[in-house]
């Protein structure tokens, strides 16, 4: 299984959001780091075909995703950054509705809905309206829908934002488990999340891929004499060293 972005470019007018970006993803967790406007969400929207690219190609197992269309989207689990939900729906209704859109039905749909609600710790509030949920609960509802249908490519934009530490650790562990046989792209500002679970980290700056390597390798790349370091280098220091202009 392989998701390949080759020379992908996206411009918004004069602003280059993603420039000649190339990367091949195989099963594993890819942490994407970058300041606001670095191109993280643009990359995710390009993979989910929510925006039109200006150049390059995106292939899944060698086939262009635009040609694959809904066959590709059937393999996709997407959790967007914005907390857009149907506020009038209950958690169960929302996840069931999204399951329908993923083509699930009958007992399979029911068992998957129960499963993801359980995983995201939403079973107790499954009959409550999402409009009354806190930010963290909404985040879990969005994660729940992304996990439906056993997606092979999981795109998670800020999945742990707004979660309490206990919940974050739990979700992080769960994502780690999932990554054994699927591609997980994880964009976040919470660097510690990536540090603990990512197999590889992509550093983006102004639409360009600055570096791509496992966390330990990136940490090692920071010079020992770099000033802000107190006693132990972490991925946060990597972020600051490479991206903290």
């Amino acid at each position, binding site marked *: 299984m392989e998701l390949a972005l080759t020379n992908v470019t996206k411009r*918004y007018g004069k602003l280059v959001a993603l420039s000649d970006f190339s990367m091949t993803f195989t099963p594993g967790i890819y942490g994407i780091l970058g300041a606001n406007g670095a191109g993280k969400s643009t990359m995710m*929207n390009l993979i*989910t*075909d*929510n*925006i*039109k690219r200006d150049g390059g190609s995106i292939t899944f197992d060698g086939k262009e995703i*635009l040609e694959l269309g*809904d066959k590709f*989207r*059937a393999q*996709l689990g*997407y*959790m*967007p950054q*914005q*907390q*857009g*939900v*149907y*506020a*009038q*729906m*209950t958690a*169960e*209704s929302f996840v*069931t*509705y*999204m399951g*329908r*859109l*993923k*083509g699930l039905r009958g007992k399979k*749909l*029911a068992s998957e*809905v129960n499963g993801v609600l359980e995983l995201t710790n939403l079973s107790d509030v*499954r*009959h*409550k*309206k999402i*409009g*009354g949920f806190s930010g963290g609960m909404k985040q879990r509802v*969005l994660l729940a*829908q992304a996990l439906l*249908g056993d997606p092979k490519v999981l*795109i998670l934009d800020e999945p742990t934002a707004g979660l309490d530490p206990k919940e974050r650790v739990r979700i992080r562990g769960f994502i780690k488990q999932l990554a054994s046989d699927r591609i997980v792209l994880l964009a976040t500002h919470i660097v510690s999340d990536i540090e603990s679970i990512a197999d590889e980290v992509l550093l983006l700056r102004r639409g360009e891929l600055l570096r791509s390597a496992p966390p330990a390798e990136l940490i090692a790349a920071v010079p020992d004499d770099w000033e802000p370091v107190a006693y132990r280098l972490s991925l946060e220091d990597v972020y600051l060293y490479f991206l903290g202009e």
Partner: protein
Amino acid sequence: MGEWKRIYSNPRRIFTLLLISLLSVVFFFYGRMPYFGPGSVSALIEGERYYADMIGRSRGLSDEEIGAMLDEEYNVLDSYYMLRVMKHSDFLLIPEDELKAEVEKSEFLSSVEKLDDESAEHILNAADMRLSELFEQHEYISGYAEYLDKVQRQAEQQSMTSIFGDENSFSHRNIVKTAEEFDKLRGTEVEFGANRAYEGWISYELADYFYLLVIVIFVLSFLEERRAGLWGVIRSSKCGRLRLGLTRVLILASACVLGVFLIYGVNLLFSLTLSGGWGDTGRAIQSMVSFRTFTQKITIGGFIIEYLLVKAASGFAVGLFLWAILGSVSNVQYSVAVLGVVVAVEYILFAFLPVQSIFNPVKYFNLFSYIRTSKLYTEYLNIDLFGFPFGIRRLSLAFLPVFAAACFALVLLVCRKRPEGRRDLISAVVGVWDKCADFFRRHFTTGGWEAYKFLVFERGIILLVIIFIASGSLSYFRYSSSKSTIYDAYLKDMAGPITQKTDEYIENAREYANGNGELLSALDKVEARVAELRARAEAGGYEPWIANDNYYRSVYGPTAVDLQRVNAAVAIVFTVVSCAAVMSFENQSGVVYMLRAQKRGRGHIFVRKMLVSFGAAAFSFGIVYIREFLWLKSAFPSAIELDVPIRNFDVFASSPLNVTIGQYLLLLYAARLAALLILSFAVMLVSSCVRTNELSYMLNLLFFGIPALLFALGIDVMRLITPVLAVSSAEGMWSLCSSQVDVSSVITWVVWLAAGVAAAVICFRRWCAVRKGLV
């Protein structure tokens, strides 16, 4: 000062208030129209001008002289009307000289005579209605003193009967009190004058609900921090509790004064402008027919001031009540539902509880007594409180400060309420409901979900019910006065396929004519007509029929063009309103990207959304047009024969389509349905381009609804930008089959079809194909 600024400087709120004021005037104007359609505005204005002119002529005249003047005017109008009927009849002489002489008698008639027949008829009808009102007023004024005497006589008579004789009973006391109160009115001088503006203003019920809307807007603005999740922050600030609450109470008071001006003040000024000015405001209020039973001595001017003050005060009390209810439930959505239930119960008690009911105090100590305040002034009623009669107006007004004070106290409690607290009962009930609903919703297909979203989340079900109720006032038939002759009578009697029986009928009729020259001459014409129809049918290859096209002409033909346009405009507005949120709902919810990333989130969901829109458009079609056909069938059950080949009608003799009238109607209704479905595409496109449902409603009404209504009102230039002619299709079909193709109808249809297809493609691409940039 910050709260005042926040409330009063919000552009959206200002715009909404001005829009409500404008709508209030528009509906007032609409309510005054004698009918809706081309020429209705001029008919209304001319009718009002006629009224003002008559009032002007009555100035300085005695009661008897006014009566004589009205009688004379009635005779002039009546003679003129009769002469016009005779002018259009082929069996009555047209006394041109007489007509001319009548017209010269009146400036009004001279101006009417210059108009085309249809406009003249509308204006004459409007003048006739105004004259009837003047007669009613004159009769009332002349008989007012007698009316007061009659009240006294009735009181005496009733007191003497045994059932009212018990001096300690409510009935007896009520009779005595009524007699006393009306006795005080003796000597009140009622005068003939310009009442129409005031009567129309006071009886305009919708104004009360527009005023209520203004109050609701301000009350909801006090709860905005709850919606925005800032309740805790506001409450934690130094002035965020009682002080803020008191400021808001003052704002509410100012809002009521503003609302009174925006709704009642503007309406009154508009009404006065329309109906000939203030007149004499020093006259007794009892000079108006509506105030026959009003027992307070006051002038018209004094009444207006008192009424406006009462309106402001009652609005303030109602506002405090609404605020107390809305504020007492923490969840804003639930609080609106609770308020809805409270208001509905109050309305049911107010509107449906019989006056005689022992529970009638709850009918009158009711929220709607303070909303529909005019009823307190125009209806005289004493209610039974512990066996004593109390005038409902005085009682309600005396209770108003108590009601306001109680609501004020509740509001103060609401201002101290903590944002987070125990789970309330409503939340528990909603929780149970959601749990039950989830059981059913988990079986919904994607199509089912789209329909559910439309009906429940987008309030579609409420809109459809409103549409259904609103469509009840549509009319479909424009009476056309046809020439009634013996020849026509024979044809009517012979209606049906032309067969051997037709010939036998003519033969028999000749025998019955018994040598009557007029009848025989008519039968000659009938025979010739039958021969002509036979020959035409033989040449055209269809079945010959004797059929009257007048019914079709009066519903689908040139006679009913204005009605068809109005109905098409209404169908457009219905479709626009019901489809406007279908796409914008997703934009508003912010789920578009997530949906589009799902396997069935593009074409699959778009098709279902389209079907929902089609369903809504088809509902509008059914409500307006299927109802039209059913009405036609039920109104003329024996005359409507769908098998008649249309070429039998003279107007369609050279029709390029060799179809029956049933097939003609099928084509017509299919074209209408197609036009409405195309419209739903256009509405969907606009809806998909905006972020909120609110904006979608506004833009769609602006693009499609308002131009359609303006065109239906007779503003012809709007035909270029509205699909009314395509939706109506009646004009196009009629002209097509009568071989006089109406180019503008055809162009409208073609342009509309092209625009609809383009809208569908763009809308589909916007939803399904990749986007150029972020939403």
